[in-house]
């Protein structure tokens, strides 16, 4: 770089640019927090959904699955699983319950987590709640 562009100019771009964009980011965050409630389906959050999220987290579901596209890519997307399973929480409960303890020979298989009925219902309610968040039309189709 030529001598016309000095180190102190570079430093000013760094400090000025960073501070400006930090504040812009905070302003956008503030605006987002005002607008998200229109899309985030928070009305559906019940004590059961909260328990469902806890079950989801304490069994590390995100270690294999994605939820709204984030997580691991080893097992299907679950943000829309409620819809994929025919808008049925019973189908979700049935699936989780029926996983074989020893897995399936040669195939990927979800572990058997030995969840109680209350936990099963809760995690299904949680997945139903997530499926009704307005995600700007994602995923492109029901396969997730």
């Amino acid at each position: 770089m030529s001598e016309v562009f000095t180190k102190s100019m570079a430093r000013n771009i760094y400090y000025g640019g960073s501070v400006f964009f930090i504040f812009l980011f905070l302003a956008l965050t503030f605006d987002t927090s005002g607008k998200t409630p229109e899309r985030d389906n928070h009305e559906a959050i019940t004590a059961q959904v909260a328990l469902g999220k806890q079950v989801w987290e304490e069994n590390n579901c995100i270690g294999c699955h994605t939820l709204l596209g984030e997580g691991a890519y080893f097992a299907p997307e679950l943000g829309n699983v409620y819809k994929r399973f025919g808008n049925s929480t019973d189908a979700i409960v049935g699936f989780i319950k029926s996983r074989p303890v020893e897995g399936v020979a040669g195939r990927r298989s979800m572990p058997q987590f030995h969840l109680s009925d209350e936990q099963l219902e809760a995690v299904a309610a949680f997945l139903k709640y997530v499926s009704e968040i307005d995600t700007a039309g994602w995923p492109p189709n029901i396969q997730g």
Partner: protein
Amino acid sequence: MQYQSQSVAKPYFIAAIGLFIGQILFGLVMGLQYVMGDFLFPEIPFNVARMVHTNLLIVWLLFGFMGSAYFLVPEESERELFSPKLALLLFWIFLIAGALTILGYLLVPYATLADLTGNELLPTMGREFLEQPTITKIGIVIVALGFLFNIGMTILGGRKTVVNLVLLTGLLGLAVFFLFSFYNPVNVVDDKFYWWWVVHLWVEGVWELILGAILAFVLIKVTGVDREVIEKWLYVIIAMSLITGIIGTGHHYYWIGTPEYWQWWGSIFSAMEPIPFFMMTIFAFNMVNRRRRDHPNKAAVLWALGTAVMAFLGAGVWGFMHTLAPVNYYTHGTQITAAHGHMAFYGAYVMIVLTMISYAMPIMRGQKAANMRAQVMEMWSFWLMTVSMVFITLFLTGAGVLQTYLQRYTDDPLPFMVVQDKIEIFYWLREIAGVVFIIGLVLYVISFFVKGNEAKVVADTA
């Protein structure tokens, strides 16, 4: 070594390399589970292997960053480290806490670990990369505070250089943004929104400051180019990192229930995120071409140049590939993401830590550079690991393109598992590339023990 206390970096680097080996072993386990679904099932299910793989990566990179700081800061500040004893104490605390956490993942079901560590009191577990029990997270904060105190006091009481201050800013940001890992609302949209304040603002924000500072330090040392020139580059690079990267967070806010204007903010700013990485490449090659001395440590120079190139490819090019909202609509959460993640983490953060280790380790062992035979082996390991990582990325990209097409794009989309079976060949090829990677890593470790003509290197430098 100019200052005795720089040697506290050594255990940090050794631990980093040890955990790196563990990370790769579990990577190979996961790679195999992709094609042999019942491998180690139910003893080590995929989610456990992945947690170990990603958490070991984070922990060993943190060891690497801390070791780099302990080596670099005294030399830049022109004084001894504030407290070498504190640095050693924190080393053992961090290592033991890290080991216990990994053992917890492996030995008991995750739900039991959550129960044992009282997750219900302050639930923070079970989110990607932040799987650590809450008590481990608190431990990380304590270690980070002690570390920042030690480094900060050293810098405050010594010469303040741009490298020092940028590094300190990066490390401070690392600690501050980690605090968001304690915020875990039930509302999934809010949870995800602030989860990225840890994950994105780390790897596409403050970690780039750490990367820039370490690279600048090594380049000053191995090229002898005037510090003023290098510091000017450093300022411009990190300015561009933050200018593009902070609003670039928006590329994670397309499909998680946040307002749709993020598709514009995220696309435009993250499309510019390759710029600082490209500048870094130009910078590194320029400095090496304008070098005023031929440093005997050829391996360190190779790592430094490699970092610049691979960070640009992995973070820059592979990031850009799927960052625009209309593209990301189809690729979000597919093997494309995995491909990008692998080359970006290797190219930017793994390689910068290995650059620093390559430069500092011989000095801490009383030589200016390792003997030529050891360096040749280290350079072999560089090429084996780097080329195999390129292939891992290409194979995952192949898998991702097909997955995106078959599952997302075609008129007749297929279910996830059907698609996974169809793209199996790419997973096999990725696993083979992974085996080559670990061969490279084994050579890397061996290179520290290769004996040669030490006197010759000294003679060359004289």
